[in-house]
């Protein structure tokens, strides 16, 4: 069975079914959405079960020519970098669908679910695409469902927000499209064949200047999507204005698209270019860590707080990838999953508090632990994971990211540690500000916000996943090793890193150097 293709097609089919359902068929819509998401989850579990941990390259590949004349194909598969992201996507979307079904918008509920399914299909496609054009297709296409969700069900400023979200992201990604084309055409000079398959481009020696230029094109898109400071302008708006379920999906899954692209394409395809852009990108990531932390500290609402904290957290992940260190990169892959889980849980808590109290304003809340002790416990879990308390799942990732970074550039790790300290400050501000102190902002001690069974269905699985990763991160990291080593190796060689730091030595002698596209007639 082409499981990986099914992974994309099943939610797509569910979206189509939901799209043609009349708006009043809310029960049927819930059923279709739940079946669709659970089926996707099941398929992703099959994919994980069939996964061969020792294989570095893409596996379970489904290949179908789409536009052979232009070298474009439907090429999907999984490898160690994408495997857990796929599972994260299906899990988070299942939970998101459940949350959406529990409180389906009054207006056009089926359409809401249809768009969520569409977004899931796009994200799964993005994480499995082995063809650059296909990657781009999903990268862009994902904007449509998210934008429509914001426009139709978002907050007061939904129109401008959705527009900025789409346009800002597109500004980067259309330049990426140009870079994609340029990359393939330059690679064609070396290989003699026009192909957009990432695996065909790996190993092509672009030359340092070309490589840097092309990578810069990709980086603009990634930087906006991640978002890397100072390109995060869309994030506070989108996270504040989107329906909260959508914010969960944005923060947990979509935010991984950029860093995933960096590791999937940026590092392995342009090893010669990394060296020139390593320090600038790392500095932006470091600024983002400190800046995001400071803003999270003073953010007026919970959504903004978690949103800005995401800027900081993703800074860590970027740092982990860009320093080209095996430990840091594997830590970064793990941290993508961790951040997905933690961000989802954090926004789920925000959802419950906002719903129970009618406000997300930090200054107007306090003491909810009195009426909502179970929520307080769950929230505490989430807080500790979010501030990466040693022993939490997030710490594992952060520790190995920074360990690897420290190995290469100790000063970066030291600066990044500021973010670790600030994380404690702002996360405790959020937890204590809402849960502790005298009761404020509510008349029922916060009992309305208490975690009921319906909320627990969403939050408890997330917490269990946190515990699982905290207890045995090796179960995840074992699968990522081969692929990350392979992805990093060319860049490590190009950077002249000591041979003992390199996981696998790339065989690239067969490739002839490509000429610069500008030099061609």
């Amino acid at each position, binding site marked *: 069975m082409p499981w990986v293709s099914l992974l994309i097609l099943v939610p797509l089919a569910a979206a189509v079914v939901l799209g043609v359902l009349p708006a009043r068929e809310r029960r049927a819509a819930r059923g279709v959405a739940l079946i669709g998401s659970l089926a996707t989850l099941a398929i992703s579990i099959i994919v994980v079960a069939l996964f061969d941990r020792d294989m570095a390259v893409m596996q379970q590949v489904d290949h179908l*020519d*789409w*536009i*052979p*004349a*232009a070298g*474009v194909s439907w090429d999907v598969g999984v490898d160690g970098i994408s495997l857990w992201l796929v599972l994260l996507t299906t899990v988070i979307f299942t939970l998101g669908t459940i949350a959406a079904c529990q409180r389906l918008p009054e207006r056009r509920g089926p359409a809401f679910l249809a768009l969520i399914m569409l977004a899931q299909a796009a994200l799964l496609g993005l994480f499995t695409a082995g063809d650059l*054009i296909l990657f*781009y*297709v*999903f990268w*862009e*296409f994902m*904007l*449509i469902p998210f*934008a*429509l969700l914001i*426009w*139709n069900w978002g907050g007061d400023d939904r*129109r401008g927000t*959705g*527009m900025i979200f*789409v*346009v800002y992201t*597109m*500004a980067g990604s*259309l*330049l990426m*499209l*140009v870079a994609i*084309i*340029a990359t393939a*055409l330059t690679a064609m000079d070396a290989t003699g064949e026009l192909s957009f398959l990432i695996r065909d481009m790996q190993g092509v020696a672009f030359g340092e200047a070309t490589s840097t230029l092309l990578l810069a094109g990709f980086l603009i898109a990634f930087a906006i999507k991640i978002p890397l400071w100072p390109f995060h302008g869309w994030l506070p708006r989108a996270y504040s204005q989107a329906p909260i379920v959508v914010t969960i999906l944005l923060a947990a899954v979509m935010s991984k698209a950029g860093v995933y692209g960096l590791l999937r394409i940026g590092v392995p395809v342009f090893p010669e270019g990394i060296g020139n852009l390593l320090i600038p990108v790392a500095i932006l990531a470091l600024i983002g860590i400190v800046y995001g932390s400071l803003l999270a500290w003073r953010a007026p609402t919970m959504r903004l707080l978690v949103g800005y904290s995401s800027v900081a957290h993703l800074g860590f992940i970027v740092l982990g990838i860009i320093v080209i260190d095996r430990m840091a990169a594997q830590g970064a892959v793990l941290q993508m999953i961790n951040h997905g889980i933690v961000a989802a849980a954090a926004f789920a808590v925000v959802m419950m508090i906002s719903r129970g109290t009618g406000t997300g304003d930090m200054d107007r809340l306090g003491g909810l632990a009195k009426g909502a002790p179970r929520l307080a416990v769950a929230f505490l879990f989430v807080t500790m994971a979010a501030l990466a308390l040693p022993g939490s799942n997030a710490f594992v990732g952060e520790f190995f990211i920074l360990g690897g970074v420290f190995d290469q550039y100790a000063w970066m790790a030291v600066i990044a540690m500021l973010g670790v300290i600030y994380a404690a400050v702002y996360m405790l501000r959020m937890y204590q500000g809402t849960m502790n102190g005298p009761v404020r902002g509510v008349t029922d001690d916060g009992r309305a916000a208490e975690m009921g069974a319906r909320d627990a269905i969403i939050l408890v699985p997330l917490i269990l996943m946190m515990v699982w990763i905290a207890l045995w991160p090796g179960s995840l990291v074992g699968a990522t090793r081969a692929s990350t080593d392979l992805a990093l190796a060319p860049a490590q060689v190009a950077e002249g890193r000591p041979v003992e730091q390199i996981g696998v030595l790339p065989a690239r002698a067969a490739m002839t150097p490509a000429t610069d*596209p*500008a030099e*061609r*007639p």
Partner: protein
Amino acid sequence: MNAGAALTLYVMAAVTVAAIVLAVVPLPASARRLPEAIGIAGIVATLAITVTQWGERQVAFNGELRIDRFGLLMTWVIMIAALATLLLGWGEPAAAGRRREFTGLVLAAATGMMLTVMSGDLITLFIGIELLSVSLYILCAMEVARERSLESGLKYLITGSIGTALLVYGFALLYGVTGTTSLAGIATRLDSVGGLASDPLLIAAIVLIVVALGFKASAVPFHMWTPDVYQGAPTPVTAFMGTGTKAAAMGAFLLLFTGATSQASGDWRGLIGALAVATMVVGNVGALLQDNVKRMLAWSSIAQAGYLLIGVAVGTTAGAEALIYYLFAYVAMTLAAFAIVILREREVEDGDQLTAMAGYGRARPWAGVVMTLAMVSLAGFPPFAGFVGKFLLFGSAVDAGMTWLAIVGAVASVISVVYYLRVVIVMWGPPADDRSTVRRLRVPPAVAAVAVTGAVAIVGLAIAAQPMLDVCADAARALIIP
């Protein structure tokens, strides 16, 4: 003399004349739709003939007419546009009482467009362009009771006449440089005489031809008539101008530059590239603040002309291939969008205003989906035809070492997202209170057919891109005169 090769032209000319004659002759009420029926039959016959003619080049009228894959495929674009225009005009209340001339004039314009893309000679090319222009002047002004229709006609005519004069002058200079009006002859002479490729007079000719054709294709800064004329003209005519004229102008560009003067490509690549850049940027920026959908689509057609010009500017067959593919996509997207506008126009007063679209997606979800598809595809979102086209165009630019064109195109596309998606937002948003369902008509099947076919094509052209591209590649190769 190979008269059979020119069969399409005969058919089109015959139905045109028939339709015009029938417009003058009094007809019984039962035969009211006869001109349209004849016109549609003629178009279908033309399309059928082109299929049988698909193959190596044939020449008719001593080389005045070239029946090759390029001309045939471009004929398809034009005939699709003409057919859709007839369907969109079917029962158009605004054109009531003029319907019979409408058909004849659309057919005449289509004939002119076909002649343009099939011509093998400067004179034929000129006549083709003039035939389509003159027909369109009248079509624009055809709603004589409406001041704006007349205004649009006169504006088009005045600016168009200037364009004509410049085209004549440009052709005259080209003739003066090469001593022949035959496209093949021009190519041969440029090929055989050294130093001719950078002759100042040739450059002057190229500049004037670029300007004149740029005018027809509404390239910046020769675009200024476009918004006014598109807005004022009857909407089916606007749709026709947006698609057919654009196709014919692009066909003329390809024939004259990528085809006939490819030896002098150094003279015009940068020029047309600069034109494309200006067109993409100004067109998209101009569309931003428009509140009238027709006017917005006019600006959008300017911007799209910019993307299309990339395919000319690169000067390669790959560029031509991408251009032709994108033309098909563009025609599908534009027709689908105009079909929805026409639908709304028939229901409410000022149906072409953006506010009239408010909540339309909720009132008629299928129309909302069609419009959304059209807008999203025009904005270049994957995985739709508009994206594949842009991808191919940008690819041809990068391949030709004109990456800057692709970058400007990318930046301009970002701007375009704003106004295209604004339509989507408004459509799916809450309805404006006063005009939500003023007149809810039975959906005219002809208009619906155009809309749905367009939407299907938007998706289908992307999925079946490869077969389509094979055809386009054949057509592009036929441009090169051996």
